[in-house]
């Protein structure tokens, strides 16, 4: 209960405990046994394993003619991933989280932590600074990310080389404090020696399980190091905003939730037509709830800014605003309860508040908080029953 400080009366406390207890019982015992804290030993099985390393081409795609395989001797074992370290031959956790094992890769998945960028994520960021030919954005990562002018669609939509005039006009595209929606670029610029991209193969097909780790992660396997070519050496995260959908976000509010609550899915842009609202779930935990904007109007020029001087006519209509506030409050309640945020759940919570006649502001109150917890417990129990019954 971090963000909302609520004083629950006795009955509410009891109901909340019951709901949380039910949620706890729905989790399989093995999952909770996998939780670790710092300096815990992670049990690994010593098995034979064969790894293949693939060196990368310039564009970071794996092409046949540039693959150079070498099979390393089967000395070890497990691949140690993020959140682990080697101490006296034991694998020890360096973070608090849950141990995940995927295909012989062992790593610790953190819960509350800063955003960890992955390839192709949709994220929402805030412009901090305008530098030569680039914008610096705050994205809840350990460093600021960079959006190059060349990675941005020009206002006139023409694909051409960026000129000096474009550079001077950067301010007409984005200024400081603007909120923009971008995607992580397909090639991470990382430091040599620190980025490892590898594939596991079962000898029948190159099953491209690609695990890309940012420059900060060290995935060391038995002292072998993959060759990494063609990357920049400054170690920063580069972004791109090339499609029509990406761009400046206005007329709405930005919410910040812990990144682990936003699951990576196929769709992160959601146009909720029934409310006339755009909902963007950034993988970095920045969530935008705003008025629906037609695609193509995203890159505004200075003339449009003067529209704000006739403000009163230009405000968001009251109905839409109510919907925006309801959805935003639903997100606040769900993130305070620690539930994973999906569009369906957010809409369901907002609808439930309407049907229970809860005032928009009362959604942040104790009663709705407890009701949401109870509702979620029932929903998950029903889902589990369906799964079990379906088999």
């Amino acid at each position, binding site marked *: 209960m971090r963000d909302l400080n609520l004083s629950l009366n006795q009955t509410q406390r009891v109901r909340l405990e019951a709901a*949380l207890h039910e949620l706890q019982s729905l989790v399989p015992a093995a999952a909770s046994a996998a939780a670790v804290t710092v*300096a815990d030993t992670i049990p690994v099985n010593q098995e034979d394993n064969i790894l293949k390393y693939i060196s990368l081409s310039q564009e970071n795609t794996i092409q046949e003619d540039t693959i150079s395989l070498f099979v390393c001797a089967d000395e070890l074992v497990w691949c140690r991933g993020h959140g682990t370290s080697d101490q006296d031959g034991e694998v020890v956790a360096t973070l608090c989280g849950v141990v995940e094992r995927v295909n012989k890769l062992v790593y610790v998945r953190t819960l509350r932590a800063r955003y960890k960028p992955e390839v192709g994520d949709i994220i929402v960021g805030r412009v901090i600074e305008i530098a030569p030919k680039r914008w610096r954005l705050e994205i809840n990562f350990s*460093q600021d990310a960079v959006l190059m002018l060349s990675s941005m669609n020009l206002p006139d939509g023409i694909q051409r080389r960026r000129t000096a005039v474009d550079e001077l006009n950067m301010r007409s595209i984005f200024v400081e404090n603007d909120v923009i929606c971008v995607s992580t670029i397909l090639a991470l610029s990382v430091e040599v020696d620190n980025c490892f991209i590898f594939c596991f193969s079962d000898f029948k097909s190159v099953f491209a399980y690609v695990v890309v780790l940012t420059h900060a992660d060290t995935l060391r396997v038995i002292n072998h190091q993959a060759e990494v070519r063609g990357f920049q050496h400054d170690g920063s995260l580069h972004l791109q905003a090339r499609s029509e959908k990406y761009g400046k976000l206005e007329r709405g509010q930005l919410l910040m939730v812990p990144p682990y609550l936003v699951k990576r899915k196929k769709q992160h842009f959601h146009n909720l037509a029934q409310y006339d609202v755009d909902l963007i779930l950034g993988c970095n935990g920045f969530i935008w709830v705003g008025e629906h904007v037609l695609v193509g109007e995203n890159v505004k020029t200075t003339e449009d800014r003067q529209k704000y001087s006739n403000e009163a006519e230009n405000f968001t209509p009251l109905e839409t605003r109510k919907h925006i506030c309801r959805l935003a409050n639903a997100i606040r309640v769900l993130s305070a309860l*620690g539930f994973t945020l999906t569009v369906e759940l957010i809409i369901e919570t907002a609808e439930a508040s309407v049907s229970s006649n809860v005032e928009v502001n009362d959604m942040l109150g104790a009663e709705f908080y407890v009701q949401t917890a109870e509702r979620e417990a029932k929903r998950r129990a029903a889902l589990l029953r369906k799964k079990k019954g379906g088999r």
Partner: protein
Amino acid sequence: MEYVNPLTGFRVDGRRPNEMRQLKAEVGVVARADGSALFEMGNTRVIAAVYGPREIQNKGQQVNNKEALVRCEYRMAEFSTGDRRRKPKGDRRSTEISLVIRQTMEASILTDLMPRSQIDIFVQVLQADGGTRSACINAATLALADAGIPMRDIVTSCSAGYLCSTPLLDLNYVEDSAGGPDVTVGILAKMDKVTLLQMDAKLPMDTFESVMGLAIEGCKAIATYIREVLLENTKRLEYQRG
């Protein structure tokens, strides 16, 4: 004054010589911080908040761009001690403790995993009743773990003293100001290594060894408690997440 009752062996507050005060820890008390924790050892209450890793604010402070910059500030509330402190920050004791906490945590944080970033640790003392620097280090460990910052090991700290010919664990303010020696120890719990050792006053060598051994045992007990708290917290976040 009788710090250890010769008949019963109890101390001023009713504890035995090798008994620690009541511990209480809570994670996530400051909503806005990346990680935060409240730690209590008896009547000593401390809040630690961690902001980071985030972009370096002041490039001039960056010494090594392959590692994260760790910064720490220690502050006491004006009402934290029995007599009001007129200058809660900037005095020499605060500066020294800030440095001590920073060095101790730096030994454990895997700074090379987060180059070109900074980690800020802020510690605020709400109530001081002896053992404040130990409570601060313990709170900082919890806050760093809450923030998801990779660490080599759990760092814990505890103090011990020697009064009335008895080694005493976890001195409170009254015992601390009795004029006897005060040994503060900080360890990396699992690796069993000492990262912080401070002592004032005089002690003969063998007595020192027993006092230090007592303090290390106290640290290990605190580490077990902290580990439980963190594990409980992680499990709770995981099942709530669904």
